[in-house]
């Protein structure tokens, strides 16, 4: 697990009823996405209904936590508290092996080492007692 700073000052997710199972799974160090029981479409981020057919019938799929870097940026400027103090950092879309692309940070890796297509694996960062973030590091 990556080190969590003593006082966490970055913006926290505003968890709602649609997203609560996603965040609760992350607290257990499990990464879930949704699948429509009617049309089979996988989706990220979490919503109460399918983006293809609006069906509310949803199952949660546990992900392998493995994927590849789809694209990324090394951020050198951000005045938002918490990020201002942790420049530079890498923001990326990771395409999970299950198919969906998710926005995240790449950690445990020098920014200049990051390449598109690089295999990565999830690392769970417990940033507060209530919130765990899914970040990614180079696959081991």
């Amino acid at each position, binding site marked *: 697990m990556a080190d969590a700073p003593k006082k966490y000052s*970055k913006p926290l997710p505003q968890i*709602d009823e649609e997203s609560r199972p996603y965040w609760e799974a992350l607290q257990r160090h499990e990464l879930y996405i949704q699948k429509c029981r009617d049309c089979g479409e*996988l989706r*990220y981020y979490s919503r109460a209904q399918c983006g293809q057919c609006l069906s509310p019938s949803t199952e949660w799929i546990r992900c392998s936590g493995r994927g590849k870097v789809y694209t990324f940026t090394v*951020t050198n400027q951000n005045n*938002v508290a918490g990020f201002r103090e942790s420049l530079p950092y890498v923001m990326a879309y990771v395409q999970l092996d299950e198919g969906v*692309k998710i926005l995240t*940070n790449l950690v445990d890796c020098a920014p200049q080492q990051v390449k598109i297509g690089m295999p990565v694996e999830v690392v769970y960062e417990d940033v507060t007692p209530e919130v765990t973030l899914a970040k990614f590091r180079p696959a081991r």
Partner: protein
Amino acid sequence: MSLKHKTAIVGAWEHPTRFAPDKSAFQITAESLHGALLDAGLTLKDVDGILSSGMAGGMGIIALCDYLNIQPNFIDSTSVGGASFVFHVAHAAAAINAGLCNVCAVVFGSTVASRPAGFGGGGADPSDQYEVPFGPTTVGSYAMIAERHMHDYGTTPEQLAEIAVTTRLHASMNPVAKYRNPITINDVLASRIISSPLHLLDCCIISDGGGAVIVTSEERARDMKKKPVYLLGAAETARHTSDGHRDFLETAAFQTGKLAFERAGVTHKDIDMAMIYDSFTITVLVTLENLGFCKRGEGGAFVQGGRLRYDGAFPINTDGGGLSSCHPMMRGMFLLIEATRQLRGECGPRQVKNCLTALVNGTGGALGQRHSGATLILSNQ
């Protein structure tokens, strides 16, 4: 029912300010409206449709109606980021054509440079909780598109830089542009990287500013002071994360360009100049590809060799763009104004020769997360 040639822009005025700590956004808006009405030979009493976006908080466009003391028959405050005003012209045309009103004013004023509002945090949109914990920035969102484009097609920082260089050349011929000293490709590459692979000079500037355009029916347009600029075709849409399945190099312009050309009944060869929202250099490159001016992946080569200069084969952003002239958070208004001025032949040293038909493409929001897009095709014929 087609909107082709039913309406025209008959007034356009760009506020010359780039820094106005002594004025409110509402005042800049009112001054811009006054300028556009004088340009058209109309008065406030003629305006029966009002369209705007960007009023911070409060009652928005109702507060603007109060401030301007107008009781219009048509109100639209479609707010889709910097592209909003491009959407507004299409909405004004539809409203006028449907008989809802006769004279629409599309107006804008901003003091974002002299009184910057805070960014970041978020939490209002359902998607925010999945993004704000990871430190997204506006530049970063576009930078991720640039990184992927470079990876897939070998697009180079030098190619992106040429867009900024060309735009600065145009700004040098615009007396009200904020940055007018010419720059080189090396200057762009030597500027610090804000969010890789985008340098400072790949990014739009921050300024105050404002502007207004007046839209009316084709019949009424014939009696105005200035030569009408007719709307031939318009289209709008949005692109977003698509449930996690998005093809990130396809932008809103892919859909709106195709529709706007179909609706206008013209082809790419007919476009004499284009105003392309240049929030960042990469925005221009992928927009030109998605509009079909070159194939996907060929944007890097397309923007090289001076093609985009005012005297090149495909002039764009002749006012100096958001990269050098002004970018008061939202740039759509200035795309409309410069296209109108070019089609009237009012651009002096930066005038595009034989400019009959122009394309305007607005992109609002964050390209790598969710964005709006609208395309207009305008002509003086």
